[in-house]
């Protein structure tokens, strides 16, 4: 399904950007109001009256090959961005800046570990290993958020790590979830030791189109349910004809891995499509907004906020970090409503619903992540 040539991306998304330069597709207020409006529309059972195809004739499509192709194409782009920002720095001796920080919203994959493995950089899987690696010129800490808890006793290992880092002379690249970073920013040690950091730029419709073109190749045609046009069709000026990808970029807040998950969630095929033509005739629409369960609203919001700060964890670990004794069934209810995924007692944020989670938390007044 994919072509083999490397992906040529626009200049502005080939490397990481400093924190503070992220171009949000919509302001915080617009996100919240847009989410509220989408929820109201879903609540009133509104249907797209301008749909080019009767949505009743579509059936959900789960395509492992397409999923794998899209995720591989995206990973290649993200790894290239990491390399263009960090590779030369990581291999250029000990002069200049010796600590770098990659900040990113929740992702389905551990991109920094993957990058470190490809370039043979040692990975610090436990903070206390720092002593063993003190003679290495460079190492990577992929996910700082897994090493602490928002609890007075669970911060000590992190501060010990910062103390040890102060005497380490090599280079360290630290990855940190943007929500954990928001929480840790109130501690001076974090700011002083790791600085401001960088993040992936916001992907617009053109950037997403390049990834989708690479993943889908020339055989498959994906049409927008709303307009009936192919989402990757371009006019004479090389501009995308259909607005689907622009809307997808906006709905995913510019995070390409969220866009890919939303796309995979929204693809369908005509119910009477036979297998031979299935690959060449896909339809796609933006998935409907998720809503929090009607009861115990605060419990769900605190649970989601705690999950975002700490990343995927066991239910018991997360429950210990909630403000009140956890409400029974809060994670199950969140899973039912599409906000989290539960696997073997481990909770992960449903990446496809990340914009809805962020909007719900923003509407409730929680401190949001900053990019």
């Amino acid at each position, binding site marked *: 399904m994919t072509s083999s040539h490397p992906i040529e991306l626009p200049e502005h998304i080939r490397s990481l950007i400093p924190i503070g330069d992220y171009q949000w597709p919509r302001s915080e207020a617009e996100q*919240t*109001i847009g989410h509220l409006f989408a929820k109201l529309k879903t609540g009133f059972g509104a249907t797209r009256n301008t749909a080019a195809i009767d949505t009743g004739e579509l059936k959900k499509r789960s395509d492992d090959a397409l999923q794998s192709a899209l995720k591989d194409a995206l990973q290649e782009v993200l790894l290239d961005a990491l390399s263009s920002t960090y590779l030369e720095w990581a291999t250029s001796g000990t002069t200049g800046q010796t600590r770098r920080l990659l900040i990113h919203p929740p992702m389905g994959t551990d991109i920094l570990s993957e990058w470190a493995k490809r370039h043979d950089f040692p990975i610090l899987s436990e903070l206390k290993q720092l002593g063993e690696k003190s003679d290495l010129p460079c190492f990577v800490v992929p996910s700082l958020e897994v090493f602490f808890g*928002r609890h*007075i006793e669970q*911060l000590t290992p992190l501060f010990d790590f910062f103390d040890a880092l102060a005497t380490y002379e090599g280079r360290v690249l630290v990855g940190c979830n943007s929500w954990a970073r*928001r929480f840790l920013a109130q501690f001076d040690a974090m700011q002083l030791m790791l600085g401001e950091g960088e993040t992936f730029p916001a992907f617009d419709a053109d950037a997403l189109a390049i990834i989708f073109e690479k993943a889908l190749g020339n055989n498959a045609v994906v049409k927008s349910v709303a307009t009936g046009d192919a989402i990757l069709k371009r006019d004479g000026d090389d501009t995308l004809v259909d607005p689907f990808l622009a809307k997808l970029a906006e709905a995913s807040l510019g995070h390409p891995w969220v866009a890919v998950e939303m796309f995979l969630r929204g693809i369908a095929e005509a119910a009477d499509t036979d297998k031979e033509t299935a690959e060449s005739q896909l339809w796609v629409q933006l998935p409907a907004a998720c809503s929090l369960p009607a009861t115990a609203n605060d419990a769900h919001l605190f649970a989601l*906020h705690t999950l975002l700060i700490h990343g995927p964890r066991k239910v018991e670990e997360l429950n210990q970090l909630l403000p009140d004794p956890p409400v029974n069934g809060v994670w199950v209810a969140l899973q039912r409503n599409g906000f989290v995924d539960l696997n073997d007692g481990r909770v992960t944020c449903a990446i496809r619903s990340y914009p809805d989670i962020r909007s719900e938390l923003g509407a409730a007044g929680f*401190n949001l992540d900053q990019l």
Partner: protein
Amino acid sequence: MEERAQRVSNLFNDINGWVIAEIALSIVLVWAFIKATQKLLPWVSEFLPAKLRHLTLNSVPILRILALLFLVVWIVPLIFNITLQNFVFIAGALSVAVGFAVKDLASSVIAGFVALFEKPYRLGDWIKIGKDYGEVVTIGMRAVQLRTPDDNVVTISHDRIWTENVLNANDGFGTLMCVATFHIAHNQDTGDVAALLRTVGKTSPYLNLDRDVIVVAQNTAFCTVYTLKAYPFEPRNQFAFITDMTERGNAALRLAGIRAASVPDDLISETNAV
């Protein structure tokens, strides 16, 4: 006599059925508009972040005043023949009537109008007038209503702002300071207590991360009083936030081997008053 009757007659326009209907319709429409904004905007504001919520709530009394001004400007020329002479006459008559009959009501209404611009309180603010503390839930023409932490609604006339101080905990902003107090016994090493309590504040799920966490220590004759001051991200969480800081602060102090003081009741009330 005839001249006076003529003057009074000149004061009013001809009022027929259509004029009465127009006046009635105007009143109904303005009333409906005011009621709609009073119901709809607070409902919408519940879905918005704290900043936008306060902005939306604050527009309710302003819209009401604008609607009432519109009503007056619309109706008065329908009833009265407005000339300078008539204006002075009507204003004088109204002043006398207001001065004698509805002095207190007029004082409250004027104070409400002043409060609209001076903003000692806005919808959504947490205020204290006299002994009453609560969230401002309604600002009417005559009075302001607070919902207290005990879920009682207290109605206080606006004219209290002439004579009493109004304590506003958040002053239109989306957060307010909360204080948890700890009494630590003398004669022990208290070197890390401030840092410990600061971390307690910083690890609270209710904390507003945009604001600093402050710890103040004060020596008294019986003990050292530590006050942990921090802001919740949502003012309505203030009591849960104080409870959370207090419970986790007590646990952290106990774990660190810090002994709490046994303090006389009168000192506790004195400290809380500070």
